[in-house]
């Protein structure tokens, strides 16, 4: 079941169309939102939160219409923005409780809940310090805590690991993974860091120029209808590439003496084909192994 969907959605800033006729579904679980600058990620999230009225098309988040039920959507959604956002003079407890009260929680409940989520996000020790004195990592955790305080069903996380040191990044990714798996919270992670998406997300949406370029589970996207093999030769050999082509395969990537060879799906005797091509071309194979596309390759292929 989709937690959010848009149908033939067109969004514009004045005369400039940012998203044109976009149709997509965000499935349950953890979804990565990928795309180069200007791809329309911002605009899509704005529209899903009800901040931007569509020119045409329709959409819903958790079953609520993005045109008419934006407050109901925001009641059930949490947002962790990319930029630093805090209110000077407040500490983490008061800021998080304030966010909870704005979501409708009674003060006592908001306060108790603020302590719980701050503890969960790893801010227990510093929760009474003024937020302007926080490190970048603590500010990121605080943004996550204020997004979680009212118990949203869907979280939008924008560059959640920005500015974090390796340890902090690891902890943040673990938190995201924990929230999005088995806690009943669906998560949309917008990030430029593909390893972060790969670590945390089950599904990926790739946007470019306001259109959907690729969509699917991470495993599906990384799989291909062809079989890929990385071959390491003793030295570069153009004749090997020709011999491989004659055998019905193709070299999709070449770096020095390393070749990525693509065979049709279900191809048999890959080793025999490689050795025959090497023998014919006079190349010397040092080794070969089956490989999968990385998410980065999927991304680059989708946006190229």
């Amino acid at each position, binding site marked *: 079941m989709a937690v959010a969907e848009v149908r033939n959605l067109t969004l514009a800033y004045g005369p400039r169309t940012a998203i044109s006729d976009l149709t997509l579904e965000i499935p349950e679980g953890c979804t990565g939102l990928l795309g180069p600058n200007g791809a329309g990620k*911002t605009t899509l999230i704005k529209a899903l939160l009800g901040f931007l009225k569509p020119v045409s098309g329709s959409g819903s988040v958790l079953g609520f219409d993005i045109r008419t039920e934006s407050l109901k959507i925001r*009641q059930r959604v949490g947002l962790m923005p990319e930029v630093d*956002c*805090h209110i000077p003079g407040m500490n983490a407890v008061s800021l998080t409780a304030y*966010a909870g009260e704005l979501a*409708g929680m*009674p003060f006592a409940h908001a306060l108790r809940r603020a302590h719980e989520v701050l503890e969960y996000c790893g801010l227990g020790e510093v929760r009474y310090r003024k937020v302007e004195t926080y490190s970048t990592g603590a500010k990121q955790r605080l943004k996550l805590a204020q997004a979680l305080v009212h*118990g949203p069903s869907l979280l939008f996380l924008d560059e959640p690991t920005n500015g974090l040191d390796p340890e902090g990044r690891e902890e943040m990714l673990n938190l995201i993974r924990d929230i999005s798996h088995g806690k009943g919270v669906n998560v949309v992670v917008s990030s430029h860091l593909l390893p972060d998406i790969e670590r945390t997300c089950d599904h990926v949406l790739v946007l470019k120029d306001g259109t959907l370029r690729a969509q699917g589970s991470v495993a599906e996207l990384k799989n291909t209808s062809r079989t890929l093999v990385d071959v390491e030769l003793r030295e570069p050999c153009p004749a090997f590439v020709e011999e491989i082509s004659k055998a019905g395969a193709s070299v999709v990537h070449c770096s020095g003496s390393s070749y990525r060879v693509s065979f049709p799906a279900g191809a048999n005797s890959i080793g025999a084909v490689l050795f025959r091509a090497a023998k014919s071309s006079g190349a010397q194979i040092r080794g070969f192994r089956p490989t999968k596309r990385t998410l980065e390759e999927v991304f680059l292929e989708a946006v190229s």
Partner: protein
Amino acid sequence: MNPPDEAQPKGLIADLSYRGYEGPLLTRRFRWWVITRNEIKLVFRNVWLLGLLVIFAYLIPGVQLYLRSFIPPEIVGERSFASYFYTGYSGSLFWLFLVALLIGAPSIAGDNRANALQILLAKPITKLDYLIGKLAAVFFILFGMSLIPALALYLFCLGSFNDQGFSKEALGILPRIIAASLLPAVVHSSVAVGVSARSKSPMVATAVYGALYIALSIVSQIASNIVVDRGGQEVATTVMHLSISGVLSGIGQHIYNAQPSFLGQPLRIWGEPLPRPELLPMVALAAALCALGITLAASHIQAVEVVRD
């Protein structure tokens, strides 16, 4: 030495796992009050000292009233009790302006600068809830600072001057005190918050509001002199009051039915007591300033920038 008990939780909260919120939710109708309460809590500590200075402004008429008990009326002149309240009111206006400068002008600009709108407006509140919350916070602080010392003076009069005729004026003065306390609170909160919403820097918003307040006073003074030069003495006083400080002072004169005075003596111009300005133009200007401020604020509170591409 005993080994640490592994079963004990490390933090204060025993269950550190995440779970959803299933508690009660309040109606959205008073969501603005959450913003107001939080804002008051945050900013009041910055201005409580100015509140003491507002009280000091009402001490002067209090002392005058005290002295009145000892000095015969033929020496100090006959004055209504309401005029003493006007003295306190006009003395408090400068301090209330400073309070508005310190809490009103930075209110939304501070949130703009800290990107706080991104988290506030992502919650189930409307821009109107946010605006009302901010306006109400500034309003309540100004109203309270204006009302409490005036009420204190009222209670002082009620306890001390009933035998000198205060009991006859007492019922009439109370609504005047409330009206006079509402006036600067409404005008300052509307205009200051309007200026604040346009800015991303609290300091700039403060400077702009201060400059606007002073510039309007200077312009109205110059305009009044020009009017006098052209022979329009009868409207000069009204023109002189066409500024933020002017409307607060001028409408205050009408509310308390008082003349501007110095040490109990009415201010004079060309040998005559300074005439009271016309009420209608000042009310119109005050209403226009409030409407402009609120409209500016409403149009400049932007929904959250979700992702920076």
